[in-house]
């Protein structure tokens, strides 16, 4: 699945200071029945976002018009639980391109990178600064600079660098994915497979 190239993203952000946000909350299992990758954004955080009768829950951040933007900022251990890539699809489909947290679950991180969402892991202290900045001004912008590997709070100029391995970075900047890479090494794979005992 091709995705948009990612270089520098400047945007306001949506704060979700909750720990252990699991992928069952991001997209509940009953919405995984599709056979095509579309429409998942409508059910992003379905049970936190809507009452059983379909009316929006006013106290949930996605229903609060003062918050918007292409960056979702979550608490520690974001994306734990199920391996469902649908969670990343729902986040992308809703319009987010970057998720910031102090800690990500592994599979969620891989899934995000594979579909063009940049997971930015920051220190707990910097995460706290981001939440504070958004709290004092919901229109606060963050600048996520992938080539420089920095995230900056525009209002204060405070900045932190983040890690990403150079292979994944190259892919995101160019809009490539792993399948392109693997297709180019098929002969090596065949040779390897011929020696496999299974």
């Amino acid at each position, binding site marked *: 699945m091709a995705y948009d190239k990612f270089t520098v993203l400047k945007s306001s952000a949506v704060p979700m200071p909750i720990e252990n946000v699991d992928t*069952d909350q991001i997209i509940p299992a009953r919405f*995984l*029945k599709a056979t095509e990758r579309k429409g998942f954004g409508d059910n992003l955080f379905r049970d936190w976002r809507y009452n059983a009768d379909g009316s929006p829950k006013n106290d949930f951040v996605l229903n609060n018009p003062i918050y918007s933007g292409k960056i979702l900022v979550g608490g520690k*251990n974001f994306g734990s639980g199920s391996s469902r890539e649908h969670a990343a699809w729902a986040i992308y489909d809703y319009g987010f391109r970057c998720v910031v947290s102090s800690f990500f679950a592994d599979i969620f991180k891989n899934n995000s990178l594979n579909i063009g969402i940049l997971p930015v892991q920051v220190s707990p202290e910097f995460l706290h600064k981001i939440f504070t900045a958004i709290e004092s001004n919901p229109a606060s912008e963050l600048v996520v600079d992938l080539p420089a590997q920095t995230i900056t709070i525009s209002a204060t100029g405070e900045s932190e660098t983040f890690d990403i391995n150079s292979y994944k970075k190259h892919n995101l900047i160019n809009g490539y994915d*792993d*399948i392109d890479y*693997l297709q180019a090494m098929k002969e090596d794979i065949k040779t390897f497979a011929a020696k496999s005992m299974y």
Partner: protein
Amino acid sequence: MSKIPATLFDKVWDSHAVRKIEDGPDVLFIDRHFIHEVTSPVAFLGLENRGLSVMFPEKTFATADHNTPTINQHLPVQDPLSANQLKALESNTAKYGISHWGLGNPRNGIVHVVGPENGITLPGMTIVCGDSHTSTHGAFGAIAFGIGTSEVEMVLSSQCIMQQKPKKMRITVTGTTGKGITPKDVTLYIISQLTAAGATGYFVEYAGEVFEQMSMEGRMTVCNMSIEMGARGGIIAPDETTFAYIKGREKAPQGAAWDNAVAYWKTLKTEEGATFDKEYTFNAADIEPMITYGTNPGMGMGITQRIPVAQEAGGSAASYEKSLQYMGFQEQEPMLGKKVDYVFIGSCTNGRIEDFRAFASVVKGRKKADGVTAWIVPGSHIVEQQIREEGILDILTAAGFELRQPGCSACLAMNDDKVPAGKYAVSTSNRNFEGRQGPGSRTMLASPLVAAAAAVTGVVTDPRELI
């Protein structure tokens, strides 16, 4: 030059690395790929869009489990969306020549149950599936982990996956467990000590007497739950218990191939002096029957304890409070005596024959409590058959329970088996997340023995009082 002692994990991983990319992931060759109806359709669509094919269809095995009903499986599936996914799996596997055990097939069942019981899962393999509980297969000394749908597409098209090699952790449990302590209690105890994120970024090897003495079913339960502390997977060195379990299973090696395989499998262990990035040691005597009180699997406690206060539990107080509020529990309350509305025994964690034997051992001679709805769901048709043959069904029936048909069922409630909002379930499954067993449902994770004690008393009960 002396050789650096290797861990079991290193041996299996390094022997499968087709290429190592500098400051990038390894290209890892995959021996077995399991697929099911929920996370594969978009991957097949991706293949079609790119004009790619399946490189090694004989290395992929498909089963229908997540969406399947647990009654009347001979009738057409009522939910049109579920039926559509099942149909997609059938046509995709037929198109590419992939083995498929659909609904009604005698080999059908939960992907992580049918792999081992048919001899598809073997020591030293790399195994992936679009399901986080693929870590189950680590019980055989395989490197097994869950993947996303883009990665399913990668494996279908190239039999490889691109992965950063995880860090290594060893968890040793010494001594022997007491009466009424099951492998589920061992794993819930470990997760409660390490938290739901305590092993993120690591692959965990389990070592020590407790695991050496454990059955294969028990080892699968432990490895299954590794993902619940954030680990990429769990692994246990294969031994005579492992070989005895595999021998004679349908797809296991036979004859000379068996002897060769066993000779290789015997080399699959961590060498003396090998180092891990992190090590933990626990004492089996500290483990009592466990139950969770919160909304992640790390929020577990000994069944006779009181719910910890936020400061003791660690993490942010606000998230902790939100969790207890969802569950309708208070800090410092005991869990014993809490009312239970639903009991679920099954799932890839505890849907194997040993789990039903344990359940029946408590239920025998007793009656199901009034007001409890019990879903007893075998992990596969083969397990269902064993339940009948061993007389477990008679015990269940005499106690007022009904046996259902295999599938993931109430573990993730993608089928009709949903716990209603506000109701309490004691569940042998792996996740107590908000709404996991149906919107608004409240799940307490526990062993089959604790589930059985709840099913016959209607409240959270220490199973040691009943055995």
